[in-house]
């Protein structure tokens, strides 16, 4: 059985443990042994995005050291954390003779969750069934940062009973942006309102995505609005779809 490592990410770990479990369930269903390196915390993105690069470097070094100790692929169920490691770690450690090569090595075996399934395992049909009308929200970092879009759509297309409704082009940011959401709440709120209007116009039951940060922000907005729409991470759709 292939062994894979899982970088669960701080948000999934602390606020969405059920979703984290869903990720594990899907991977184990596919016959993988899932190892969750102990002591993992946060990739450092919140500090980096806020401009606190010394703090971000400390958090990055911690994460790099931890994951450098394990071998094999590392799966990360978050586009924004993936972007942090692959695109921004090199910026933080440019010209660092120790961490530069470590980051390169890490990035070479780091996969976003759907990317791992579709591109590495060559699996898009898991035999899952989940009757629902959904709209897919492509998170900006997943879409533009990692160029991952085909993969989640391929997985969703193979879920029996799942109707993926179309929405307006182009995909627009939900307005989360990390600390932006509390630093510039009025703008964040306005962007969120625009997104919610677009989602509700489709008549879908669920908003599905690959980034829990966006989904958390979107669902928070839906609930405040009194909407019955909810969000689900793609791993949850697949995991629950497998149980039926």
């Amino acid at each position, binding site marked *: 059985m292939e062994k894979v490592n899982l970088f669960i990410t701080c948000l999934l770990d*602390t*606020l969405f443990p059920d979703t984290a479990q869903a990720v594990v369930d899907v991977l184990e269903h596919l016959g993988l042994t899932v190892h969750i390196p*102990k002591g993992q915390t946060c990739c450092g993105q919140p500090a980096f995005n806020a401009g*606190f690069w010394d703090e971000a470097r400390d958090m990055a070094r911690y994460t790099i050291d931890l994951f450098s100790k394990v071998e094999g692929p590392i799966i990360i169920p978050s586009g924004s954390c993936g972007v942090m490691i692959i695109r921004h770690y090199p910026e933080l450690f440019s010209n660092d003779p120790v961490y530069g090569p470590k980051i390169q090595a890490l990035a070479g075996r780091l996969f976003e969750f759907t990317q791992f399934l579709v591109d590495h395992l060559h699996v898009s049909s898991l035999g899952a069934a989940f009757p629902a009308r959904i709209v897919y929200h492509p998170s900006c970092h997943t879409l533009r940062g990692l160029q991952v879009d085909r993969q989640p759509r391929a997985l969703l297309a193979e879920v029996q009973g799942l109707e993926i409704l179309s929405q307006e082009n182009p995909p627009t940011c939900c307005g989360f942006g990390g600390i932006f959401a509390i630093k510039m709440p009025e703008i964040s*709120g306005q962007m969120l309102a625009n997104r919610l209007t677009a989602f509700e116009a489709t008549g879908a039951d669920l908003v599905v995505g690959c980034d829990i940060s966006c989904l958390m922000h979107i669902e928070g907005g839906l609930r405040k609005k009194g909407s019955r729409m909810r969000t689900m991470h793609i791993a949850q759709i697949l995991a629950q779809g497998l149980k039926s």
Partner: protein
Amino acid sequence: MSTAPVSIRQGVKKALENPDRLVNIQTAAERFYTGRIAALTTLPDSDALRDLGRKIRAHTIAHLDQYLLQFEASLSALGGVVHWAGDAREAGEIITQIARAAQVKRIAKSKSMVSEEIQLNARLEAAGMEIVETDLGEYIAQLSGDHPSHIIAPVVHLNRKDVGRVFAEKLKVPYTENVLELNAIARRSLREVFLSADMGISGCNLAVAETGTICLVTNEGNGRMVTSLPRVHVALMGMERIVPTIKDLGVLLQLLARSATGQKMSSYTSLITGPRRQREEKGPQELHVVILDNGRTGILGSDLAEVLYCIRCAACLNVCPVYRSIGGHAYGAVYTGPIGSVISPALGGIARYADLPQASTLCGACREACPVRIDLPTLLLRLRNKTIRQEISPLWMKAGLKGFRWITTDAGRYNFLTWLAGIFSKVLGKQWLTWLPGPLRGWTRYRSFPPFQKSFQQRRRRAKGED
């Protein structure tokens, strides 16, 4: 003009009070966006053209001293005069001197962002010159004392009734809200300005080093009027707005209009090379080009240098979800949107414009839209870092992130605190929270917050009997 730090949140609150104006800006942005996408498909390989455009700009900026000198030599040989201005004040003085020496009273001006950057109008007016904006949107803004809200469509935030009122009041004409009539009024009124102006001031979309050419990309015809009818023409040029050859210009021209408005070419793309030649019937007797630094050399020597590739098409504005939500005025700066969020602090100082790089989710739509592929999100991140290194940051954020770092760089601390959160969750229950304290109130004003939980790693440890 105030030098107090710009507060985007204040600007946003004000902008949100006028939702109708914001709708106009959204409509404009949407239209230019779809225009750009459609226009790019009329090229056989727009991606290759963009790559080439970037290479041309990258090569030029990497040899900027050489090309500026070549431009100066080429233009001087044809009788044009090249001036170098270190900053806004100096540029104002140079142009004032030119105007005085040529006994200029009335100046007709076509659109130039750089002229707004250096507050040229105020400087010239202080010297006793009359200066009239001739770009229709800028003319309306000038008459009404308003500021442009979009680089390409300066008064898109106004409607025809607003314009009708401005014309009626300032031009003493009967009120009309008929758009055709309003345009006709402007045409008549400004025609008089073109014919009587002593000097024309223009910007410069791109200069060409090899020939000493200034290229102007316009649509109304005022750019042509202002640069061919008065006896003196002054072109104001940001020092980075240059390419090596005419063919290089051709490449960028194929990208510029398409990226800006969705046109294949603007109505008038003028190549101005020197003052009137001897046997030409009309044209300026004097042509002056003022090359402006005003902080650009500083940018070139920094890790923000890539921003100098910009050709000012505003594609990034039109696609930016933040700009579309708040409009241009909220930025409180001459340069707005994603490009403005980099160059306003880069040119005008981080202390004053620290808010601008914060007003972004780093979604990357701007980078995707930029014809020369400037990595704006990365530049914004670098500016955020520079902001922190200047100690400009609210206390709660500094404390919060330092705390966060402390927690996440030690497994023991992290596990303890997540365990604590798990206990908390038992108290608070499974409901999404509708109120959070302090700076986190900004969250709950617009959305609920998910309930605290027993962390996933803790559950795993418990399940494996390790706790």
